[in-house]
C-alpha cells in the first residue's frame, strides 16, 4: 500500500477510542452516545467548563487524544448525576468522566494546578498514609498549598470555623503529630497495594 493510502486509513483507525474503551472505567459505553446534548444542557456547572460530556465523547470518537486528556472538564464534575439519570441511552456519564480524569491524571497529561486534581491528590495521599483522613493535616496542607503568606491568610479567615470544630470535639490539634490510624495498618497497606496492582493491570499501567 502507498503511504498516501496508509495515511488515509490512519485517520479513520481511531486508536484513541479503543484506548479509552480498554483503559477507562466504563469506556466501552462512549460509543453509545447519540449526541443528543441532554447531558450538556442538564449539567449545573455546564457553562463553566470547556468541554461538556457530549463534546468530550465526540472528541474521543474524533481521536483528539491530547485535547481530551488535557481537558480540565472531567475535574469539574461534582458527581450530581443529573446527566446520568437523564441520558436517554443510559450512559454512565459521571463514571466515564471520573474514569477519564483518573486516566489523564495517571498519564500525567491532566492540567497542572487544576484545584480539584490537586485536592484529590492531597486527600488520597493523606488517607492512605494511616487508613484514616487526618483532617487537621489535610486542611493545613490545603491552606498552605500556595505558600506561607496565603496559607496564614486563609487559615485566619477560617479560624472561627476551626474553633467551633475544636469546641465540638470535631478537630483534635494533637493530630499534627501524625494522628490516629486503623488497627491493622500493615494489612491496610497490603490492601491498597493489591488494589493498585489490580487497577494498574486493568488500566494498562503494568510496566
Amino acid at each position, binding site marked *: 500500500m502507498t503511504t498516501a493510502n496508509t495515511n488515509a486509513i490512519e485517520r479513520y483507525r481511531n486508536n484513541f477510542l479503543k484506548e479509552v474503551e480498554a483503559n477507562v472505567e466504563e469506556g466501552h459505553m462512549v460509543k453509545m452516545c*447519540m*449526541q*443528543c*446534548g*441532554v447531558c*450538556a*444542557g*442538564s449539567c449545573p456547572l*455546564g*457553562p463553566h467548563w470547556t468541554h*461538556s460530556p*457530549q*463534546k468530550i465523547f465526540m472528541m474521543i470518537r474524533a481521536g483528539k487524544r491530547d485535547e481530551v486528556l488535557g481537558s480540565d472538564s472531567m475535574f469539574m464534575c461534582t458527581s450530581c448525576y443529573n446527566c446520568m*439519570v*437523564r*441520558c*436517554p*441511552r*443510559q450512559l454512565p456519564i459521571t463514571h466515564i468522566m471520573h474514569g477519564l480524569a483518573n486516566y489523564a491524571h495517571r498519564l500525567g497529561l491532566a492540567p497542572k494546578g487544576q484545584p480539584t486534581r490537586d485536592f484529590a491528590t492531597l486527600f488520597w495521599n493523606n488517607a492512605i498514609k494511616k487508613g484514616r483522613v487526618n483532617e487537621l493535616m489535610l486542611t493545613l496542607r490545603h491552606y498552605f498549598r500556595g505558600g506561607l503568606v496565603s496559607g496564614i491568610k486563609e487559615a485566619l479567615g477560617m479560624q472561627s470555623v476551626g474553633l467551633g470544630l475544636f469546641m465540638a470535639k470535631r478537630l483534635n490539634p494533637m493530630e499534627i503529630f501524625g494522628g490516629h490510624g486503623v488497627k491493622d495498618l500493615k494489612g491496610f497497606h497490603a490492601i491498597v497495594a493489591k488494589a493498585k496492582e489490580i487497577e494498574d493491570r486493568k488500566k494498562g499501567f503494568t510496566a
Partner: protein
Amino acid sequence: MTASIATNQTILVVGGGISGMTAALEAAECGKQVILVEKTPVLGGRTARLYRYFPKMCHPTCGLEINLRRIKQNRNIRLMTMTEVTAVSGSRGNYSVTLKVAPRFVNENCTACGKCAEAVTAEVSNPWNYGLDKMKAAYLPHNMAYPQRYVIDPSIVGTPEGEKAKAACPVGAVDLDMKEETVTLSVGAVIYATGWRPYDAAKIQPYGYGRFANVITSLEFERLADPQGPTGGKILRPGDGKEAKNIAFIQCAGSRDENHLRHCSRICCMASLKQTQYVREAFGDQGKSTIYYIDIRAIDRFEDFYQMVQKDATVSFVKSKVAKIVENAENGNPVLHGVDTEGYHRYATEHDLVVLAVGMEPEITGVKLPDDVILDSSNFIEGSKDGGMFGAGAASSPLDVNRSVQSATAASLHAIQVIRKTASTEAV
C-alpha cells in the same frame, strides 16, 4: 377434509380506530362474520381526532366518512361500543371471549336531536379534545360520531341532572336504569387493534408538562388547530389565551429514551413537520416554528415532505434534545435550555408555546392480556403462540395511519386464514 378446523367462524376485532375498522371491514367484505368491539362510545379512535394527515394534508373526516359508510352498509359487522374485552380463553379457532358492556344510558331510539344536552347543565372533561375543554354531561362525542347517538355521563345518573336529561328527551331514549352487562361470545380468531396512547408527558419531569400551562402535547396541538376543537381552530395558548405565533416543537418527548419509551415512535417527526404547516396556515409569514430534534426521521417516502418544510422560511431546525424548560414568570413564556450539537452552543430560547412530540405507548400497556399473547419489549403485540390472535396497526408497532391500514389488512388476512384452515391445509 374440507371442513374448517376452527369450530367458530367469527372474527373478533378489538378496537374501533382506523386499524380496527379496516381489519373488520376487510374481513366482513370477504364475507366473514365480524364482531367489532370499541371501548369508547364512537368509532374513529385517535385518527379521527387529528386535524390533518401527512403528507397530503387532507382531513381525517374524509377517510372516516368512507369507512363509516362501508360499515353501515355491511351486514357482516356487529358493532359493540362502550365494550371492553375482560377475558379470553380457549385456543386458535375456538376462543371464548368475555365482554363488559358499559351502560350508555341512551337506547337506540335516540335521534341525536340534542335536547338532553340543552337540558343538562353539569359539565365533564371532554376526552375528544384531550381534556382541553369541558362538555355537557349528556353529549354527542363529536359531529361525525358513529353511532350517531348521545351518551349520558355516569356521573349524572341518579342525580336531578340525569332526570332533566330524561325529561327533555322527546322519544324516550334516555334510560337511566341501564346496567353494566357481561357477554360471553365464541370466536375463531382475535385481532387486537387496540392502538396507542400518547406517552404521559408529565413523566418527562424537566419539560414541566402539567406545571407550565404553555407546554402542551402534539395531540393537544392537533385539537387547537382543528375548527371543531376547543378554540375553534385558532392557535391560542392555554396559559392566557394569547395567539401563539412562536412555537417550539420538541422531538423524542419520551421516545428513544431508556428512561421512558425505548422505541422510536416513528410518527412524531412527520407529525411535527406537519404541524409547522398549521402554524403557517394560521399566521402566514408571521408564524415561527422551531423544531428541536436529535435527528429527523421522516419515515419511508416522506423525505420530500421534510425537504419542503426545510425550504419554509418560517421553520427552523435546532439539532439538540432540549435539556430543560423553565417558565418566564413575567409573561408565562417557556424558556428552553440546552446545548446544540452543531457547534455545541448553549442556548436559552424563549417561545410562546412548546409542543411536545410525545411518543406512542401501546394502549394495552398495563392491561392483562391472555398469557398466549406475545409482546415485544415496548409492549407492542407480536401475535400469539397458538397463531390465532394478531396485533394490527399501532397496537403491533408504532405506525402512522397509512401503515396502520396496511397492517390491519394483513392481520385481517391472517385471521381469515385461521378460520378457513382445514385439516388438509393444516397438515402442510
